[in-house]
Protein backbone atom coordinates (compact mmCIF):
# COMPACT_ATOMS: atom_id res chain seq x y z
CA UNK A 1 0.00 0.00 0.00
CA UNK A 2 2.95 2.31 0.72
CA UNK A 3 4.08 2.02 -2.88
CA UNK A 4 0.59 2.55 -4.25
CA UNK A 5 0.47 5.69 -2.12
CA UNK A 6 3.87 6.79 -3.42
CA UNK A 7 2.95 6.32 -7.08
CA UNK A 8 -0.49 7.92 -6.63
CA UNK A 9 1.08 10.89 -4.84
CA UNK A 10 3.65 11.38 -7.59
CA UNK A 11 1.00 11.08 -10.28
CA UNK A 12 -0.88 13.90 -8.58
CA UNK A 13 2.27 16.02 -8.54
CA UNK A 14 2.81 15.24 -12.23
CA UNK A 15 -0.01 17.64 -13.06
CA UNK A 16 0.28 19.80 -9.97
CA UNK A 17 -1.72 22.76 -11.32
CA UNK A 18 -4.72 20.58 -12.07
CA UNK A 19 -4.38 18.85 -8.70
CA UNK A 20 -4.21 22.21 -6.94
CA UNK A 21 -7.20 23.54 -8.84
CA UNK A 22 -9.33 20.49 -8.04
CA UNK A 23 -8.27 20.47 -4.40
CA UNK A 24 -9.06 24.21 -4.20
CA UNK A 25 -12.54 23.61 -5.55
CA UNK A 26 -13.15 20.94 -2.92
CA UNK A 27 -11.61 23.18 -0.25
CA UNK A 28 -13.93 26.02 -1.24
CA UNK A 29 -16.95 23.73 -1.00
CA UNK A 30 -15.92 22.44 2.42
CA UNK A 31 -15.32 25.99 3.68
CA UNK A 32 -18.71 27.10 2.40
CA UNK A 33 -20.52 24.24 4.14
CA UNK A 34 -18.62 24.44 7.43
CA UNK A 35 -18.80 28.23 7.78
CA UNK A 36 -22.51 28.18 6.94
CA UNK A 37 -23.04 25.39 9.49
CA UNK A 38 -21.18 27.40 12.13
CA UNK A 39 -23.11 30.60 11.40
CA UNK A 40 -26.54 29.02 11.18
CA UNK A 41 -25.71 26.94 14.26
CA UNK A 42 -24.87 30.10 16.19
CA UNK A 43 -28.15 31.74 15.18
CA UNK A 44 -30.09 28.56 15.90
CA UNK A 45 -28.54 28.01 19.33
CA UNK A 46 -29.13 31.62 20.30
CA UNK A 47 -32.76 31.54 19.27
CA UNK A 48 -33.44 28.16 20.88
CA UNK A 49 -31.76 29.41 24.05
CA UNK A 50 -33.82 32.60 24.02
CA UNK A 51 -37.10 30.81 23.44
CA UNK A 52 -36.63 27.95 25.86
CA UNK A 53 -34.69 29.73 28.60
CA UNK A 54 -36.61 32.99 28.78
CA UNK A 55 -40.14 32.24 27.68
CA UNK A 56 -41.39 28.76 26.84
CA UNK A 57 -39.27 26.26 28.69
CA UNK A 58 -38.57 22.94 27.01
CA UNK A 59 -41.96 21.28 27.56
CA UNK A 60 -45.41 22.53 28.56
CA UNK A 61 -48.34 20.58 29.96
CA UNK A 62 -51.93 21.84 29.67
CA UNK A 63 -55.44 20.64 30.06
CA UNK A 64 -56.56 19.10 26.79
CA UNK A 65 -57.68 21.81 24.35
CA UNK A 66 -55.86 24.72 25.99
CA UNK A 67 -53.26 25.25 23.27
CA UNK A 68 -55.90 25.24 20.52
CA UNK A 69 -57.61 28.20 22.21
CA UNK A 70 -54.54 29.84 23.74
CA UNK A 71 -55.23 33.12 21.91
CA UNK A 72 -58.43 33.46 23.99
CA UNK A 73 -56.59 32.66 27.24
CA UNK A 74 -59.46 30.42 28.43
CA UNK A 75 -59.93 30.19 32.17
CA UNK A 76 -62.20 27.16 31.91
CA UNK A 77 -59.31 25.01 30.67
CA UNK A 78 -57.16 25.20 33.76
CA UNK A 79 -55.60 22.26 35.57
CA UNK A 80 -57.18 21.71 38.98
CA UNK A 81 -55.67 20.42 42.22
CA UNK A 82 -56.47 16.78 41.45
CA UNK A 83 -54.87 17.03 38.01
CA UNK A 84 -51.78 18.70 39.45
CA UNK A 85 -51.46 15.99 42.07
CA UNK A 86 -51.50 13.38 39.30
CA UNK A 87 -49.02 15.28 37.14
CA UNK A 88 -46.61 16.01 39.98
CA UNK A 89 -45.98 12.30 40.40
CA UNK A 90 -44.42 12.23 36.95
CA UNK A 91 -42.67 15.57 37.26
CA UNK A 92 -41.04 14.80 40.60
CA UNK A 93 -39.89 11.34 39.62
CA UNK A 94 -38.57 12.20 36.16
CA UNK A 95 -34.86 11.70 35.58
CA UNK A 96 -34.79 14.36 32.87
CA UNK A 97 -36.61 17.28 34.50
CA UNK A 98 -34.56 19.91 36.28
CA UNK A 99 -37.41 22.18 37.40
CA UNK A 100 -40.95 23.19 36.59
CA UNK A 101 -43.20 26.18 37.15
CA UNK A 102 -46.95 26.76 37.32
CA UNK A 103 -48.53 29.61 35.44
CA UNK A 104 -51.97 31.13 35.25
CA UNK A 105 -52.41 32.84 31.90
CA UNK A 106 -55.12 35.39 31.54
CA UNK A 107 -56.03 38.65 29.88
CA UNK A 108 -57.25 41.87 31.39
CA UNK A 109 -57.37 45.65 31.19
CA UNK A 110 -54.35 47.67 32.24
CA UNK A 111 -54.87 51.26 33.32
CA UNK A 112 -52.49 53.96 34.56
CA UNK A 113 -55.44 56.25 35.42
CA UNK A 114 -54.79 58.22 32.24
CA UNK A 115 -55.43 55.57 29.62
CA UNK A 116 -56.35 51.91 29.44
CA UNK A 117 -55.24 49.04 27.24
CA UNK A 118 -55.47 45.25 26.93
CA UNK A 119 -52.81 43.18 28.58
CA UNK A 120 -51.89 39.50 28.58
CA UNK A 121 -50.33 38.18 31.73
CA UNK A 122 -48.46 35.24 33.13
CA UNK A 123 -49.10 34.82 36.81
CA UNK A 124 -46.13 33.02 38.31
CA UNK A 125 -44.40 31.78 41.42
CA UNK A 126 -41.28 33.94 40.87
CA UNK A 127 -38.75 31.57 42.44
CA UNK A 128 -39.93 28.58 40.41
CA UNK A 129 -40.34 30.61 37.23
CA UNK A 130 -36.84 32.08 37.40
CA UNK A 131 -35.41 28.61 38.15
CA UNK A 132 -37.25 27.17 35.16
CA UNK A 133 -36.42 30.07 32.83
CA UNK A 134 -32.89 31.14 33.77
CA UNK A 135 -32.70 33.77 31.01
CA UNK A 136 -36.02 35.40 31.83
CA UNK A 137 -34.33 37.98 34.03
CA UNK A 138 -32.21 39.04 31.02
CA UNK A 139 -35.42 40.16 29.32
CA UNK A 140 -36.53 42.17 32.33
CA UNK A 141 -35.43 45.80 32.26
CA UNK A 142 -35.13 48.00 35.34
CA UNK A 143 -36.08 45.02 37.47
CA UNK A 144 -34.53 44.54 40.90
CA UNK A 145 -34.78 40.74 40.77
CA UNK A 146 -37.74 40.23 43.11
CA UNK A 147 -41.41 40.06 42.16
CA UNK A 148 -43.60 40.29 45.23
CA UNK A 149 -47.33 40.17 45.64
CA UNK A 150 -48.88 43.46 44.52
CA UNK A 151 -46.25 44.04 41.85
CA UNK A 152 -46.30 43.78 38.07
CA UNK A 153 -43.73 43.53 35.30
CA UNK A 154 -45.21 45.29 32.28
CA UNK A 155 -44.49 44.54 28.60
CA UNK A 156 -42.24 47.27 27.18
CA UNK A 157 -44.74 47.96 24.41
CA UNK A 158 -47.18 49.20 27.10
CA UNK A 159 -44.63 51.13 29.20
CA UNK A 160 -43.47 52.94 26.10
CA UNK A 161 -46.93 53.46 24.63
CA UNK A 162 -48.54 54.65 27.86
CA UNK A 163 -45.48 56.31 29.37
CA UNK A 164 -45.58 54.05 32.42
CA UNK A 165 -42.61 54.38 34.78
CA UNK A 166 -41.07 52.03 37.32
CA UNK A 167 -42.77 52.61 40.66
CA UNK A 168 -46.05 53.79 39.13
CA UNK A 169 -49.26 52.34 40.51
CA UNK A 170 -51.55 50.83 37.92
CA UNK A 171 -54.89 49.06 37.97
CA UNK A 172 -55.47 45.61 36.58
CA UNK A 173 -59.06 44.67 35.80
CA UNK A 174 -60.00 41.14 34.73
CA UNK A 175 -63.02 38.94 34.23
CA UNK A 176 -63.07 35.65 36.02
CA UNK A 177 -64.31 32.33 34.68
CA UNK A 178 -67.94 33.17 35.38
CA UNK A 179 -67.63 36.66 33.88
CA UNK A 180 -67.63 38.81 36.97
CA UNK A 181 -65.16 41.71 36.97
CA UNK A 182 -62.56 42.43 39.60
CA UNK A 183 -59.62 44.76 39.85
CA UNK A 184 -56.45 45.25 41.92
CA UNK A 185 -53.82 47.95 42.26
CA UNK A 186 -50.30 46.89 41.35
CA UNK A 187 -46.92 48.59 41.47
CA UNK A 188 -44.77 48.53 38.33
CA UNK A 189 -41.40 46.94 39.19
CA UNK A 190 -40.00 46.21 35.74
CA UNK A 191 -40.43 46.04 31.99
CA UNK A 192 -40.27 42.90 29.95
CA UNK A 193 -38.77 42.90 26.43
CA UNK A 194 -40.63 41.16 23.66
CA UNK A 195 -39.50 37.86 22.25
CA UNK A 196 -40.78 35.90 19.26
CA UNK A 197 -43.21 33.06 19.87
CA UNK A 198 -46.35 32.57 21.96
CA UNK A 199 -46.27 34.38 25.31
CA UNK A 200 -43.43 36.57 24.09
CA UNK A 201 -45.39 39.78 24.78
CA UNK A 202 -46.93 38.82 28.13
CA UNK A 203 -46.41 40.68 31.38
CA UNK A 204 -45.83 39.03 34.75
CA UNK A 205 -47.55 39.20 38.13
CA UNK A 206 -47.39 37.06 41.26
CA UNK A 207 -49.63 33.95 41.10
CA UNK A 208 -51.38 34.94 44.34
CA UNK A 209 -52.45 38.25 42.78
CA UNK A 210 -53.96 36.35 39.84
CA UNK A 211 -55.93 34.13 42.21
CA UNK A 212 -57.16 37.23 43.96
CA UNK A 213 -58.23 39.17 40.90
CA UNK A 214 -59.75 36.08 39.27
CA UNK A 215 -61.41 35.07 42.54
CA UNK A 216 -60.10 31.52 42.35
CA UNK A 217 -61.16 29.41 45.30
CA UNK A 218 -58.99 26.35 44.89
CA UNK A 219 -55.75 25.64 43.09
CA UNK A 220 -55.86 26.36 39.37
CA UNK A 221 -53.06 26.44 36.83
CA UNK A 222 -53.19 27.20 33.09
CA UNK A 223 -49.90 25.52 32.25
CA UNK A 224 -46.89 23.78 33.65
CA UNK A 225 -43.60 24.92 32.13
CA UNK A 226 -40.80 22.36 32.35
CA UNK A 227 -37.05 22.81 32.12
CA UNK A 228 -34.97 19.74 31.29
CA UNK A 229 -31.48 19.04 32.51
CA UNK A 230 -30.37 19.15 28.86
CA UNK A 231 -32.34 20.26 25.79
CA UNK A 232 -31.01 17.18 23.99
CA UNK A 233 -33.06 15.04 26.38
CA UNK A 234 -36.26 16.37 24.81
CA UNK A 235 -37.25 13.18 23.00
CA UNK A 236 -36.53 10.96 26.00
CA UNK A 237 -38.42 13.27 28.32
CA UNK A 238 -41.44 13.42 25.98
CA UNK A 239 -41.41 9.64 25.91
CA UNK A 240 -41.18 9.43 29.66
CA UNK A 241 -44.14 11.80 30.07
CA UNK A 242 -46.20 10.14 27.34
CA UNK A 243 -48.41 8.10 29.77
CA UNK A 244 -49.89 11.44 30.80
CA UNK A 245 -51.36 11.79 27.33
CA UNK A 246 -53.41 8.63 27.83
CA UNK A 247 -54.97 9.73 31.11
CA UNK A 248 -58.73 10.09 30.82
CA UNK A 249 -60.89 12.60 32.69
CA UNK A 250 -64.22 11.94 34.42
CA UNK A 251 -65.99 12.14 31.07
CA UNK A 252 -63.70 9.38 29.73
CA UNK A 253 -61.97 11.88 27.43
CA UNK A 254 -58.28 12.61 27.22
CA UNK A 255 -57.35 14.91 30.10
CA UNK A 256 -54.00 16.46 29.19
CA UNK A 257 -51.81 17.63 26.37
CA UNK A 258 -48.04 17.88 26.29
CA UNK A 259 -46.09 20.00 23.84
CA UNK A 260 -42.39 20.43 23.31
CA UNK A 261 -41.02 23.89 22.51
CA UNK A 262 -40.57 22.65 18.93
CA UNK A 263 -44.31 22.10 18.62
CA UNK A 264 -45.22 25.41 20.24
CA UNK A 265 -42.73 27.81 18.70
CA UNK A 266 -43.11 29.00 15.11
CA UNK A 267 -39.33 29.45 15.16
CA UNK A 268 -38.94 25.69 14.96
CA UNK A 269 -40.01 25.90 11.30
CA UNK A 270 -37.24 28.40 10.66
CA UNK A 271 -34.80 25.97 12.29
CA UNK A 272 -36.08 23.21 10.05
CA UNK A 273 -35.60 25.47 7.03
CA UNK A 274 -32.04 26.23 8.16
CA UNK A 275 -31.42 22.49 8.44
CA UNK A 276 -32.88 21.88 4.98
CA UNK A 277 -30.66 24.63 3.56
CA UNK A 278 -27.71 23.02 5.29
CA UNK A 279 -28.51 19.69 3.66
CA UNK A 280 -28.96 21.42 0.28
CA UNK A 281 -25.54 23.04 0.59
CA UNK A 282 -24.06 19.68 1.52
CA UNK A 283 -25.61 18.16 -1.60
CA UNK A 284 -24.04 20.96 -3.68
CA UNK A 285 -20.70 20.20 -2.03
CA UNK A 286 -21.07 16.51 -2.79
CA UNK A 287 -21.84 17.36 -6.41
CA UNK A 288 -18.78 19.62 -6.63
CA UNK A 289 -16.53 16.91 -5.22
CA UNK A 290 -18.09 14.19 -7.36
CA UNK A 291 -17.82 16.11 -10.63
CA UNK A 292 -14.32 17.49 -9.90
CA UNK A 293 -12.82 14.16 -8.95
CA UNK A 294 -14.63 12.29 -11.72
CA UNK A 295 -13.40 14.83 -14.26
CA UNK A 296 -9.80 14.72 -13.05
CA UNK A 297 -9.70 10.95 -12.81
CA UNK A 298 -11.23 10.41 -16.26
CA UNK A 299 -8.67 12.81 -17.73
CA UNK A 300 -5.97 11.04 -15.80
CA UNK A 301 -6.96 7.66 -17.26
CA UNK A 302 -7.14 9.00 -20.83
CA UNK A 303 -3.77 10.71 -20.51
CA UNK A 304 -2.09 7.57 -19.21
CA UNK A 305 -3.59 4.84 -21.38
CA UNK A 306 -0.19 3.77 -22.72
CA UNK A 307 1.27 3.77 -19.23
CA UNK A 308 -1.63 1.66 -17.99
CA UNK A 309 -1.04 -0.70 -20.93
CA UNK A 310 2.63 -0.97 -19.97
CA UNK A 311 2.03 -1.84 -16.33
CA UNK A 312 -0.75 -4.24 -17.33
CA UNK A 313 1.58 -5.91 -19.87
CA UNK A 314 4.24 -6.25 -17.20
CA UNK A 315 1.77 -8.24 -15.14
CA UNK A 316 0.19 -5.71 -12.79
CA UNK A 317 -3.09 -7.33 -11.69
CA UNK A 318 -6.26 -5.34 -12.54
CA UNK A 319 -7.08 -4.85 -8.85
CA UNK A 320 -3.71 -3.15 -8.30
CA UNK A 321 -4.49 -0.77 -11.17
CA UNK A 322 -7.86 -0.05 -9.51
CA UNK A 323 -6.08 0.68 -6.22
CA UNK A 324 -3.66 3.08 -7.92
CA UNK A 325 -6.46 5.25 -9.28
CA UNK A 326 -8.62 5.00 -6.15
CA UNK A 327 -5.66 6.18 -4.13
CA UNK A 328 -5.26 9.23 -6.38
CA UNK A 329 -8.91 10.19 -5.90
CA UNK A 330 -8.68 9.52 -2.19
CA UNK A 331 -5.60 11.72 -1.80
CA UNK A 332 -7.29 14.54 -3.70
CA UNK A 333 -10.33 14.27 -1.43
CA UNK A 334 -8.22 14.16 1.74
CA UNK A 335 -6.19 17.17 0.59
CA UNK A 336 -9.32 19.19 -0.20
CA UNK A 337 -11.09 18.17 3.03
CA UNK A 338 -8.06 18.92 5.21
CA UNK A 339 -7.41 22.33 3.67
CA UNK A 340 -11.13 23.10 3.84
CA UNK A 341 -11.39 22.10 7.50
CA UNK A 342 -8.33 24.14 8.52
CA UNK A 343 -9.45 27.19 6.54
CA UNK A 344 -13.00 26.92 7.94
CA UNK A 345 -11.72 26.77 11.51
CA UNK A 346 -9.61 29.88 10.91
CA UNK A 347 -12.52 31.75 9.30
CA UNK A 348 -14.94 30.77 12.08
CA UNK A 349 -12.37 31.78 14.70
CA UNK A 350 -11.94 35.11 12.91
CA UNK A 351 -15.71 35.72 12.72
CA UNK A 352 -16.03 34.89 16.41
CA UNK A 353 -13.32 37.38 17.32
CA UNK A 354 -14.94 40.08 15.17
CA UNK A 355 -18.08 39.97 17.39
CA UNK A 356 -20.40 40.65 14.45
CA UNK A 357 -23.86 41.83 15.48
CA UNK A 358 -27.14 41.14 13.74
CA UNK A 359 -30.84 41.80 14.15
CA UNK A 360 -33.70 39.35 14.18
CA UNK A 361 -37.21 40.73 14.14
CA UNK A 362 -37.31 43.49 16.73
CA UNK A 363 -34.28 42.16 18.50
CA UNK A 364 -31.06 43.91 17.59
CA UNK A 365 -27.39 43.88 18.56
CA UNK A 366 -27.39 40.11 18.85
CA UNK A 367 -23.80 38.89 18.74
CA UNK A 368 -22.91 36.25 16.20
CA UNK A 369 -20.94 33.53 17.96
CA UNK A 370 -20.19 30.90 15.32
CA UNK A 371 -18.89 27.63 16.72
CA UNK A 372 -17.55 24.87 14.53
CA UNK A 373 -18.30 21.55 16.22
CA UNK A 374 -15.66 18.88 15.76
CA UNK A 375 -18.50 16.50 14.89
CA UNK A 376 -19.48 18.67 11.88
CA UNK A 377 -15.87 18.92 10.69
CA UNK A 378 -15.49 15.15 10.90
CA UNK A 379 -18.83 14.44 9.19
CA UNK A 380 -18.14 16.82 6.27
CA UNK A 381 -14.56 15.56 5.89
CA UNK A 382 -15.71 11.94 5.87
CA UNK A 383 -18.41 12.75 3.29
CA UNK A 384 -15.87 14.49 1.03
CA UNK A 385 -13.34 11.67 1.29
CA UNK A 386 -16.01 9.01 0.73
CA UNK A 387 -17.41 10.85 -2.32
CA UNK A 388 -13.87 11.25 -3.70
CA UNK A 389 -13.42 7.53 -3.42
CA UNK A 390 -16.80 6.81 -5.02
CA UNK A 391 -16.08 9.24 -7.88
CA UNK A 392 -12.80 7.43 -8.58
CA UNK A 393 -14.37 4.00 -8.85
CA UNK A 394 -15.60 4.29 -12.43
CA UNK A 395 -12.34 5.70 -13.91
CA UNK A 396 -10.32 3.17 -11.88
CA UNK A 397 -12.41 0.26 -13.20
CA UNK A 398 -12.08 1.63 -16.72
CA UNK A 399 -8.29 1.72 -16.33
CA UNK A 400 -8.18 -1.82 -14.97
CA UNK A 401 -10.30 -3.16 -17.85
CA UNK A 402 -8.19 -1.64 -20.61
CA UNK A 403 -6.90 -4.17 -23.11
CA UNK A 404 -3.08 -4.02 -22.80
CA UNK A 405 -2.57 -4.48 -26.55
CA UNK A 406 -4.97 -1.66 -27.43
CA UNK A 407 -3.54 0.52 -24.68
CA UNK A 408 0.05 0.00 -25.84
CA UNK A 409 -0.91 1.04 -29.37
CA UNK A 410 -2.15 4.41 -28.10
CA UNK A 411 0.15 7.36 -28.63
Amino acid at each position, binding site marked *: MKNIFKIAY*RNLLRNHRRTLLTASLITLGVVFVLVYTALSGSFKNYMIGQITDSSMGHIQIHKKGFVASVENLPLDKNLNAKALEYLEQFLNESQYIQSYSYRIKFGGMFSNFVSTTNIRLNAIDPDKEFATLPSLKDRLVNFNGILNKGEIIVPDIITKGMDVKIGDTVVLVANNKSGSVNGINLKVVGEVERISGPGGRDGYIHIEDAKKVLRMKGVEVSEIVIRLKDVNMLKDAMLELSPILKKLNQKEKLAFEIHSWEQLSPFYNIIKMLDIMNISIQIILISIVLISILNVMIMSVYERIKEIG*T*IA*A*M*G*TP*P*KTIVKLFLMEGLLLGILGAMLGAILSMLIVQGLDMMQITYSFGRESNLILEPILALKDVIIISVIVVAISLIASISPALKASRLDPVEA*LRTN
Partner: protein
Amino acid sequence: MISAKNLNKTYKVGELTLTVIHDFSLDINEGEFISLIGPSGSGKSTVLNMLGCLDTPTSGSLIINGQDIAILNKTQQANFRGEHIGFIFQSFNLIPVLTVYENIEYPLIMIQNLPEHERKVRIEKLLHEVGMYEQKDKTPDKISGGQMQRVAIARALVTNPKIVFADEPTANLDSTTAHMIIELMKKIQKEHNTTFVFATHDEKIVSNVDRLITLVDGNIVEDIYTNNGVQQ
Protein backbone atom coordinates in the same frame (compact mmCIF):
# COMPACT_ATOMS: atom_id res chain seq x y z
CA MET B 1 9.52 -23.71 -23.42
CA ILE B 2 6.93 -22.27 -25.82
CA SER B 3 4.72 -24.53 -27.84
CA ALA B 4 2.19 -22.87 -30.13
CA LYS B 5 -0.07 -25.19 -32.12
CA ASN B 6 -2.44 -24.05 -34.88
CA LEU B 7 -2.95 -20.57 -33.51
CA ASN B 8 -5.52 -18.52 -35.33
CA LYS B 9 -6.41 -14.90 -34.80
CA THR B 10 -9.41 -13.34 -36.45
CA TYR B 11 -10.96 -9.90 -36.07
CA LYS B 12 -14.46 -8.83 -36.92
CA VAL B 13 -14.52 -5.69 -39.02
CA GLY B 14 -18.18 -4.84 -39.53
CA GLU B 15 -19.70 -7.82 -41.34
CA LEU B 16 -16.28 -9.15 -42.38
CA THR B 17 -14.14 -11.62 -40.47
CA LEU B 18 -10.46 -10.89 -40.99
CA THR B 19 -7.94 -13.66 -40.33
CA VAL B 20 -4.55 -12.16 -39.48
CA ILE B 21 -2.86 -15.33 -38.17
CA HIS B 22 -3.64 -18.63 -39.77
CA ASP B 23 -2.64 -22.04 -38.36
CA PHE B 24 0.49 -20.69 -36.73
CA SER B 25 2.63 -23.37 -35.07
CA LEU B 26 6.01 -22.80 -33.47
CA ASP B 27 8.23 -24.31 -30.80
CA ILE B 28 10.78 -22.14 -29.06
CA ASN B 29 13.48 -23.58 -26.86
CA GLU B 30 15.11 -22.14 -23.77
CA GLY B 31 17.87 -19.61 -24.38
CA GLU B 32 17.06 -18.95 -28.04
CA PHE B 33 17.64 -15.50 -29.56
CA ILE B 34 14.87 -15.31 -32.15
CA SER B 35 13.57 -12.69 -34.48
CA LEU B 36 10.21 -12.56 -36.18
CA ILE B 37 10.58 -10.65 -39.43
CA GLY B 38 8.28 -9.82 -42.26
CA PRO B 39 6.68 -6.90 -44.03
CA SER B 40 4.31 -4.53 -42.25
CA GLY B 41 0.96 -6.23 -41.66
CA SER B 42 2.50 -9.69 -41.76
CA GLY B 43 1.33 -10.36 -38.18
CA LYS B 44 4.66 -10.08 -36.28
CA SER B 45 3.26 -7.95 -33.47
CA THR B 46 0.09 -10.04 -33.23
CA VAL B 47 2.16 -13.23 -32.87
CA LEU B 48 4.39 -11.53 -30.31
CA ASN B 49 1.35 -10.36 -28.34
CA MET B 50 -0.20 -13.85 -28.39
CA LEU B 51 3.04 -15.57 -27.38
CA GLY B 52 3.46 -12.94 -24.64
CA CYS B 53 -0.06 -13.65 -23.29
CA LEU B 54 -1.16 -10.10 -24.02
CA ASP B 55 -3.58 -11.15 -26.73
CA THR B 56 -5.75 -14.25 -26.81
CA PRO B 57 -5.75 -16.49 -29.90
CA THR B 58 -9.16 -17.12 -31.46
CA SER B 59 -8.30 -20.82 -31.57
CA GLY B 60 -5.34 -23.12 -31.13
CA SER B 61 -3.21 -24.11 -28.17
CA LEU B 62 -0.42 -22.20 -26.48
CA ILE B 63 1.70 -23.74 -23.77
CA ILE B 64 4.42 -21.74 -22.08
CA ASN B 65 6.64 -23.34 -19.46
CA GLY B 66 4.12 -26.18 -19.24
CA GLN B 67 1.17 -23.85 -18.60
CA ASP B 68 -1.81 -23.96 -20.95
CA ILE B 69 -2.53 -20.24 -21.41
CA ALA B 70 -6.08 -20.78 -22.75
CA ILE B 71 -7.40 -21.82 -19.32
CA LEU B 72 -6.14 -18.71 -17.52
CA ASN B 73 -8.46 -15.77 -16.82
CA LYS B 74 -7.39 -12.13 -17.18
CA THR B 75 -5.91 -11.84 -13.69
CA GLN B 76 -4.17 -15.22 -13.90
CA GLN B 77 -2.69 -14.20 -17.26
CA ALA B 78 -1.43 -10.98 -15.67
CA ASN B 79 0.15 -12.97 -12.83
CA PHE B 80 1.69 -15.39 -15.32
CA ARG B 81 3.23 -12.52 -17.29
CA GLY B 82 4.55 -11.02 -14.09
CA GLU B 83 6.25 -14.28 -13.10
CA HIS B 84 7.50 -15.66 -16.42
CA ILE B 85 7.63 -12.99 -19.11
CA GLY B 86 9.47 -9.72 -19.64
CA PHE B 87 8.62 -7.04 -22.19
CA ILE B 88 10.75 -4.45 -23.95
CA PHE B 89 8.89 -1.82 -25.95
CA GLN B 90 9.82 0.35 -28.89
CA SER B 91 9.09 3.56 -26.95
CA PHE B 92 10.69 2.23 -23.73
CA ASN B 93 7.46 2.95 -21.82
CA LEU B 94 9.10 3.88 -18.52
CA ILE B 95 6.84 5.30 -15.82
CA PRO B 96 7.65 9.02 -15.92
CA VAL B 97 6.99 9.72 -12.22
CA LEU B 98 9.43 7.05 -11.02
CA THR B 99 13.23 7.20 -11.00
CA VAL B 100 15.41 4.74 -12.92
CA TYR B 101 15.78 2.65 -9.76
CA GLU B 102 12.04 2.77 -9.01
CA ASN B 103 11.11 1.85 -12.58
CA ILE B 104 13.19 -1.31 -12.30
CA GLU B 105 11.83 -1.91 -8.82
CA TYR B 106 8.19 -1.57 -9.95
CA PRO B 107 7.57 -5.22 -11.04
CA LEU B 108 9.22 -6.52 -7.86
CA ILE B 109 6.94 -4.44 -5.63
CA MET B 110 3.66 -4.33 -7.51
CA ILE B 111 3.75 -7.76 -9.06
CA GLN B 112 6.14 -10.08 -7.23
CA ASN B 113 5.99 -8.33 -3.84
CA LEU B 114 9.62 -9.12 -2.89
CA PRO B 115 11.17 -7.86 0.36
CA GLU B 116 13.28 -4.72 0.12
CA HIS B 117 16.75 -6.23 0.69
CA GLU B 118 16.17 -8.83 -2.02
CA ARG B 119 14.94 -6.15 -4.39
CA LYS B 120 17.98 -4.01 -3.72
CA VAL B 121 20.43 -6.83 -4.52
CA ARG B 122 18.70 -7.69 -7.80
CA ILE B 123 18.24 -4.09 -8.96
CA GLU B 124 21.81 -2.98 -8.19
CA LYS B 125 23.22 -6.04 -9.99
CA LEU B 126 21.13 -5.25 -13.08
CA LEU B 127 21.92 -1.53 -12.89
CA HIS B 128 25.61 -2.44 -13.09
CA GLU B 129 24.96 -4.92 -15.91
CA VAL B 130 23.14 -2.35 -18.06
CA GLY B 131 25.54 0.42 -17.03
CA MET B 132 22.92 2.64 -15.40
CA TYR B 133 23.98 2.53 -11.76
CA GLU B 134 25.19 6.14 -11.79
CA GLN B 135 21.87 7.32 -13.22
CA LYS B 136 19.68 5.36 -10.82
CA ASP B 137 18.14 8.39 -9.12
CA LYS B 138 17.25 10.22 -12.31
CA THR B 139 13.75 10.30 -13.74
CA PRO B 140 13.24 9.13 -17.38
CA ASP B 141 13.06 12.70 -18.70
CA LYS B 142 16.65 13.28 -17.52
CA ILE B 143 18.23 10.41 -19.49
CA SER B 144 18.77 9.62 -23.20
CA GLY B 145 16.76 7.20 -25.36
CA GLY B 146 19.51 4.59 -25.23
CA GLN B 147 19.67 4.89 -21.46
CA MET B 148 15.91 4.57 -21.26
CA GLN B 149 16.03 1.35 -23.26
CA ARG B 150 18.76 0.02 -20.94
CA VAL B 151 16.48 0.74 -18.00
CA ALA B 152 13.60 -0.96 -19.85
CA ILE B 153 15.81 -4.03 -20.39
CA ALA B 154 16.73 -4.07 -16.70
CA ARG B 155 13.04 -3.75 -15.80
CA ALA B 156 12.16 -6.63 -18.13
CA LEU B 157 14.87 -8.83 -16.59
CA VAL B 158 14.50 -7.96 -12.92
CA THR B 159 11.81 -10.59 -12.32
CA ASN B 160 14.15 -13.28 -13.72
CA PRO B 161 11.81 -14.16 -16.60
CA LYS B 162 12.57 -17.12 -18.80
CA ILE B 163 11.34 -15.27 -21.89
CA VAL B 164 11.64 -11.66 -22.98
CA PHE B 165 9.54 -10.31 -25.84
CA ALA B 166 10.81 -7.20 -27.56
CA ASP B 167 8.77 -5.32 -30.14
CA GLU B 168 11.06 -3.16 -32.31
CA PRO B 169 13.39 -2.44 -29.37
CA THR B 170 15.89 -0.47 -31.47
CA ALA B 171 13.47 1.46 -33.69
CA ASN B 172 13.78 4.67 -31.69
CA LEU B 173 17.54 4.50 -31.21
CA ASP B 174 20.46 5.70 -33.30
CA SER B 175 22.65 3.10 -34.93
CA THR B 176 25.46 3.10 -32.34
CA THR B 177 23.08 2.97 -29.39
CA ALA B 178 21.02 0.27 -31.12
CA HIS B 179 24.17 -1.80 -31.57
CA MET B 180 25.09 -1.40 -27.90
CA ILE B 181 21.57 -2.41 -26.85
CA ILE B 182 21.69 -5.54 -29.04
CA GLU B 183 25.08 -6.47 -27.58
CA LEU B 184 23.70 -5.95 -24.09
CA MET B 185 20.71 -8.23 -24.73
CA LYS B 186 22.95 -10.86 -26.28
CA LYS B 187 25.28 -10.75 -23.30
CA ILE B 188 22.33 -11.16 -20.93
CA GLN B 189 20.96 -14.02 -23.05
CA LYS B 190 24.26 -15.85 -22.74
CA GLU B 191 24.75 -15.14 -19.04
CA HIS B 192 21.18 -15.85 -17.92
CA ASN B 193 20.12 -18.27 -20.66
CA THR B 194 17.09 -16.03 -21.21
CA THR B 195 15.02 -16.55 -24.35
CA PHE B 196 14.65 -13.37 -26.41
CA VAL B 197 11.94 -13.08 -29.07
CA PHE B 198 12.02 -9.97 -31.22
CA ALA B 199 9.58 -8.56 -33.72
CA THR B 200 11.68 -6.27 -35.84
CA HIS B 201 12.74 -4.85 -39.19
CA ASP B 202 16.15 -3.89 -37.87
CA GLU B 203 18.96 -5.54 -39.81
CA LYS B 204 21.28 -5.14 -36.85
CA ILE B 205 19.08 -7.41 -34.76
CA VAL B 206 18.41 -9.79 -37.64
CA SER B 207 22.12 -10.28 -38.20
CA ASN B 208 22.65 -11.12 -34.54
CA VAL B 209 19.88 -13.65 -33.87
CA ASP B 210 20.26 -17.45 -33.78
CA ARG B 211 16.94 -18.11 -35.46
CA LEU B 212 15.00 -16.15 -38.01
CA ILE B 213 11.30 -16.68 -38.58
CA THR B 214 9.76 -14.95 -41.56
CA LEU B 215 6.04 -14.21 -41.58
CA VAL B 216 3.91 -13.31 -44.55
CA ASP B 217 0.17 -12.75 -44.17
CA GLY B 218 0.13 -14.45 -40.78
CA ASN B 219 1.92 -17.61 -41.94
CA ILE B 220 5.47 -18.78 -41.33
CA VAL B 221 7.16 -18.89 -44.69
CA GLU B 222 10.65 -19.50 -43.45
CA ASP B 223 12.16 -20.71 -40.16
CA ILE B 224 15.96 -20.86 -40.26
CA TYR B 225 18.84 -21.01 -37.85
CA THR B 226 21.38 -18.39 -38.86
CA ASN B 227 25.15 -18.54 -38.82
CA ASN B 228 24.88 -17.76 -35.13
CA GLY B 229 22.82 -20.95 -34.64
CA VAL B 230 22.36 -24.25 -36.51
CA GLN B 231 20.62 -24.56 -39.92
CA GLN B 232 17.28 -26.38 -39.48
